[in-house]
């Protein structure tokens, strides 16, 4: 059984439930995982589950790397761009200060990378000159 499938099943089961119903459901889910010896894989299941949830709710998690904290105006612009491009409603940021970028910003959305950093530009120039 793949963790992705388990997470999908848990998500679908929990969709309609609320309050005590939900907590009872989650309790029995954990029991099920224990019985099936899947508890050791819970971190993977949890991360898969959060991906499924984000997708359903139109949310994306974005990693922002920059040399200095990004200003609100710039962030707003990035948010608008990403919302349009990925057709989502919420953009959650994880900001990382990375001096190695030398300047600019690098945006990572899952597998997709939008590298607008100075380091990338210098590297591109380097390969071009080597040609």
């Amino acid at each position, binding site marked *: 059984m*793949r963790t992705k499938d388990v997470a999908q099943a848990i998500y679908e089961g929990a969709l309609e439930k609320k309050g005590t119903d939900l907590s009872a459901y989650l309790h029995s889910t954990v029991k099920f995982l224990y019985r099936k010896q899947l508890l050791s894989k819970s971190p993977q299941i949890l991360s898969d589950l959060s991906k499924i949830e984000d997708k359903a709710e139109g949310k994306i998690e974005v990693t922002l790397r920059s040399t200095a904290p990004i200003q609100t105006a710039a962030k707003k612009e990035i948010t608008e*761009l990403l919302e349009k*491009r990925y057709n989502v409603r919420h953009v959650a940021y994880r900001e990382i200060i990375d001096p190695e970028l030398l300047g600019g910003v690098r945006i*990572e959305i*899952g*597998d*997709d*990378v*939008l*590298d*607008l950093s100075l380091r990338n530009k210098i590297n591109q120039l380097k*390969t071009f000159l080597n040609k």
Partner: protein
Amino acid sequence: MSNNIVENLKKEIENWNAELKIEKAGRVVEVFDGIAKVSGLSDIRSSEMVTFAGGQKGVALNLEEDAVGVIILGDFSHIKEGEEVNATGQILDVPVSEALLGRVVNPIGQAIDGKGAIKSDKTYPIERVASGVITRQAVDQPMYTGIKVIDAIIPVGRGQRELIIGDRQTGKTAIAVDAILNQKGQNMICVYVSIGQKDSKLRKIQTRLEQGGAMDYTIIVSAGASDSAALSYIAPYTGVAIAEYFMDKGKDVLIIYDDLSKHAVAYREISLLLRRPPGREAYPGDVFYLHSRLLERACRRSQKYGGGSITAFPIIETQAGDISAYIPTNVISITDGQIFLETDLFYKGIRPAVNVGSSVSRVGGTAQIKAMKKVAGTLKLDLAQYRELEAFAQFGSDLDEATKRQLERGKRSVELLKQSQYSPVKAEYQIVSIYALSKGYMDDVPVEKILDFERGLIDYTERNAKTFYKEITESKMWTDKGEEELKKAITDFKSTFNK
């Protein structure tokens, strides 16, 4: 007015939306033996090229649920776990241009002969679907190797795939190199693909080709013995991509794969490392397709579609003469015939050590010119009868005249087909010497003097049977007048030779 331009340009600049290029990136999870497991890269295609942070190239071969198996082309010792890998969106390709002629390149198209970078503005994908039925034409033009036994008995046509098969040290590469040397002035381009060969051997071949003036029309693609299996695996595809470039320009190309046994071994290594299930002799299930799709790209294209052809000489090395092993049987069934070389013949001094009985050419016959077909027909028969009688003759003392004559003729045929390395013979000379043999002019020449006789004969007839040679080169067949002249020249020469 000028103000307007400035204002408008300003607006344009303000409204300019630079297209942002979003790249697909993944991370190296595992790296070992020239293979990398990469996570991410969700939309990657099979055979897509990827680049590692250090600039190395790779090709995605295994697309799995949550990882991609990548073969690394080149040095993999600097690739680290966790390193970023970028998808390029391109199928692996190789730069092609006229500037490749005379050069030695590695399987990704970089020069390795120390003569500087090769300029090119075009690339060809290394994996391409072979020309279809509509664009093809039957093989009907000869491709002379300059080797008597091949051109006469196992003729090869332009666009044919002829396998050269034999044990180690039986002269497989020698035949290929002779064939390249013989293409001088024949309007051919040659591509020599060296797979897993020693660099010293390659260097020897390169020097030999340079001495023979053959590098002017030859390209060498080399994946050496110390290069990774990934490079050996793609080398023949690179070679044929380069060949296709020249074919698309209407040229005839000869490509030699030296050798496909090592190619299969390299592919087996990659497949096992990628954990694909092993089959017979531990080769993966698609090892037949590996060679069939490569050799299918050899073709003769019809004039309507630009003409041009690719003739392929794949080489297979057998172990102890076993042609029923997995890879040899595969490649035999794919190709249009095989030239079978034998150790026994080689040590008997019959060189090239071609076993005429087991060698065939399934399509070359139609490509042979009329004159050659006529003289070679009787030669083939003579040799077949000789082989049959040879066994008897070992016991026999009492043989009748006819049998004795057959044996003597057979001995001379075998002797005449001997040829030293790097000395290709022109087709018209071959016709003259085989003509003299089949008409019985050589029957009273001592066996050990046959090759001397041949040399003298060619020299003499070239001066004294000009009409015959002219007819052969112009109309591919002799007339009665030309034949009379040749007969007279041979008789004249014989009288001087015997003295």
